[in-house]
C-alpha cells in the first residue's frame, strides 16, 4: 500500500493562504492505488481547501499536485480525470438522471449510444437502473446521492473525491450508503479521498485517516492506529471519547497532577496520557489486583446516562480526577450515583500522547 510507484495521488508541500489566514501549511500526502483515504477534521481544518486544490478548483500558493506521476498543479479540473461527488450532489437540474450520468462521457467525445450504454451500466451498479428518465428533483436525497456517485465513476476516473456526501442524509440511510459506497469502491478498486467531520464515518470507511486541524495533517494512519495511538490531545479528542491526564512520567509510571499513579506498559517521557472510556472497568466487588497488571482506584459514581447498548458513567477517583467510563449495559449491573466502586484499567490501555508540539 505504501509502494512508492503505486501512488495515484502525490501532494507535496502544498501551501495556501487566504489574505492573512493560512488555510494550508505544507501539506504532504500520498494516496496509493485502490486506497480509501479520509480527510477528517472540523470545519476550518483545511480539509475542504485541500480537496478543492486536488480537484483543481483552487490553486495552491506553492507545492505540487501529481496524479499518476503527472504534474497537475496547474491543470484545469477538466483535465484531471477526477470524479467528484459534491456535498449537495450538484446534479444538473435540466438533464435527466441518464443524461446527467452521460455528461462526462459526452465531454470525452464518446458516441451518444456508447455513452448511454455505459451510463445505464453505472446506474445499475448503484441500483438506479429504472430511474434513468426521471429528473433529479423527482428523486429522494439518497437516490440523488447515487446518481452523483454513478456520474463520478462512469468515466473510470483516476481518483474519486467525496466531499461530505452523506451529511444531508438521515442516520439510517447514511449507514446503508456508507456500506454501499465502500463496497462499490473496493469492488472497482477506486482510489478514493473522502472528506468528513464525522469521526465514526471515518473509522468505518477508511483504509487510512488523515486527521486535519489548523491547516495541517495532525496524524495519518489506519483507523486502529488513529484510535488506539493518537499522538495528541486534538486527535484523541476528535476521534472517539477520551480521558486525558496531565502529569509527570517516570519510567513505566505516570503520576497525574492529582497524585493518582498509573502503571504503564512501556516507559515513556510524555507528560500527557489518554485512557479511552471503554477501557475502564467498574465493579462492586473489591478484587485485590497486582499493580503491574492493573491500575486500581476507588471511585465514586457522579452520574450516569443510559445510551442503549452501553451506559456512560462519570466517576470521581479518590484522588480527585473525574473520569468518564463506558460500560456495556447489562440489566442488573447498573451502578447508582453515589455508589463507591472499584475502577480498574490495564497498563496497556494507558496511552501516552507522543506529539508534544501539538496541544
Amino acid at each position, binding site marked *: 500500500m505504501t509502494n512508492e510507484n503505486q501512488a495515484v495521488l502525490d501532494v507535496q508541500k502544498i501551501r495556501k493562504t487566504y489574505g492573512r489566514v493560512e488555510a494550508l501549511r505544507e501539506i504532504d500526502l500520498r494516496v496509493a492505488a485502490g486506497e480509501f483515504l479520509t480527510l477528517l477534521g472540523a470545519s476550518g481544518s483545511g480539509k475542504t481547501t485541500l480537496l478543492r486544490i486536488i*480537484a*483543481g*478548483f483552487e490553486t495552491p500558493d506553492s507545492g505540487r499536485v501529481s496524479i499518476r506521476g503527472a504534474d497537475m498543479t496547474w491543470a*484545469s*479540473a*477538466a483535465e*484531471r*480525470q*477526477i*470524479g*467528484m461527488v*459534491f*456535498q*449537495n450532489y*450538484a*446534479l*444538473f*437540474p*435540466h*438533464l*435527466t438522471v441518464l443524461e446527467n450520468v452521460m*455528461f*462526462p462521457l459526452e*465531454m*470525452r467525445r464518446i458516441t451518444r449510444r456508447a455513452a448511454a450504454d455505459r451510463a445505464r451500466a453505472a446506474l445499475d451498479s448503484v441500483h438506479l437502473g429504472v430511474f434513468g428518465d426521471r*429528473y433529479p*428533483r*423527482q428523486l429522494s436525497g439518497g437516490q440523488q446521492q447515487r446518481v452523483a456517485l454513478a*456520474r463520478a465513476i462512469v*468515466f473510470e476516473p483516476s481518483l474519486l473525491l467525496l466531499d461530505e456526501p452523506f451529511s444531508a442524509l438521515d442516520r439510517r440511510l447514511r449507514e446503508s450508503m456508507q456500506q454501499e459506497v465502500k463496497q462499490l469502491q473496493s469492488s472497482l478498486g477506486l482510489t478514493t479521498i473522502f472528506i468528513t467531520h464525522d469521526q465514526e464515518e471515518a473509522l468505518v470507511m477508511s483504509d487510512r485517516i488523515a486527521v486535519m486541524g489548523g491547516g495541517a495533517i495532525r496524524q495519518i494512519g489506519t483507523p486502529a492506529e488513529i484510535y488506539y495511538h493518537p499522538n495528541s490531545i486534538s486527535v484523541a479528542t476528535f476521534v472517539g471519547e477520551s480521558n486525558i491526564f496531565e502529569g509527570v512520567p517516570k519510567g513505566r509510571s505516570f503520576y497525574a497532577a492529582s497524585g493518582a499513579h498509573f502503571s504503564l506498559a512501556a516507559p515513556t517521557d510524555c507528560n500527557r496520557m489518554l485512557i479511552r472510556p471503554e477501557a475502564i472497568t467498574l465493579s462492586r466487588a473489591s478484587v485485590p489486583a497486582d499493580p503491574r497488571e492493573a491500575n486500581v482506584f476507588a471511585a465514586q459514581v457522579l452520574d450516569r446516562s443510559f445510551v442503549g447498548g452501553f451506559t456512560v458513567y462519570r466517576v470521581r477517583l479518590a484522588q480527585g480526577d473525574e473520569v468518564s467510563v463506558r460500560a456495556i449495559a447489562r440489566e442488573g449491573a447498573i451502578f447508582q450515583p453515589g455508589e463507591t466502586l472499584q475502577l480498574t484499567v490495564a497498563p496497556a490501555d494507558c496511552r501516552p500522547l507522543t506529539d508534544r508540539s501539538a496541544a
Partner: protein
Amino acid sequence: MTGALVHLRGPRATGMLLTAPAAMLLLVLFFYPLATLFLTTLHPDNIENYARVVSSGTYMQVYLNTLRLAVIVTVIDLVIAYPLAFYMCRLTGGSRMVAFFLLLIPLWTSQLVRTYAWMVLLGRNGPINSALMALGLTDTPLRLSNSEFAVVIGMVHILLPYMVLPIYSSASKIDRSLLEASRGLGAGAFSTLTRVLIPLTIHGVLAGVSLVLVLSLGVFIMPALLGGGRVPVIPLLIEQQAGSFLNWAMAGTFCVILLAMVLVIFWLIKLSTRLLVRGRVHA
C-alpha cells in the same frame, strides 16, 4: 376573514383579490381605449386602411425596418447583458449595490433627458468626436448623431436593464457547484456555457428577449430625436398620423398591425420556450 372575503377562499381567490385593483386599472385605462381604437379602425369608413397599409411597399418597409431595429437592439443587449448578469452574481455587499444602482439609474431618469444626453455625447462637437480627433483617429468629426447608429446606441442603453434583470434573476439561482461539477466532469468553458449555463438561464434569456424586443418596437423618442428623420419606424408614423394629420383611424390601423406583430412575437417566444426548456414541466 370577514364580510365578502368569507366566500372567497383558496389561493385562486386570494390571487384574484390581490390583482383586482391592477386589473381594474388596466381595464379602464388600457383595455377600454384600445378596444375603442380597434373598433374605430373597423368602421366601414376606415376598414380599407388595412388594405392600404398592407399593400403599400413603403409602409411594409417601415414595419420591417422597425422589426430589424428591434432585433439588432435585442441581440446587442443580450450580448452585453449575459456576461454582465453573471458578473453581478459574483459581486457581494457594497459592490453589488453599486452595480445595481448603476444599472437602474437609466430607469429612474426621464427618457427625454437620457436622449438629450446622447445627443450631446454624440454631437458633432461632442466629447466623443473631440476625443477621437484628439487621439488622431479621425480628422473631421464623424456624423454620429442623426443616424441609425445613434438610435441603436440610445435604445441599447435604455433597454439594457430589461435584459439584465431577468437574466440576473435566473443566473443568481444557479448553484456554483454545478459549474464546478461541469468542469470537473471534463467540460471546457464552451461546453459548460452551452450545456449547463444557457439551459439553466434560458427562462431569463427568453424573458429578457421578449421584454426588450417588444419595448423596442414601441420606442418613439430615440428614433425621433437621435434618428434625424433618417430612421423610419412605426411609432413615428403613428405620431405623424395622429399628431400632424389628425387621422386617428390611420394611426389606429398602424397600432393594431404593430400590436398583432407583438402578439405573434410573444407567441413565437412562448413556442420556443416549450421547445427549449425541458424538464421543468414535470415539477
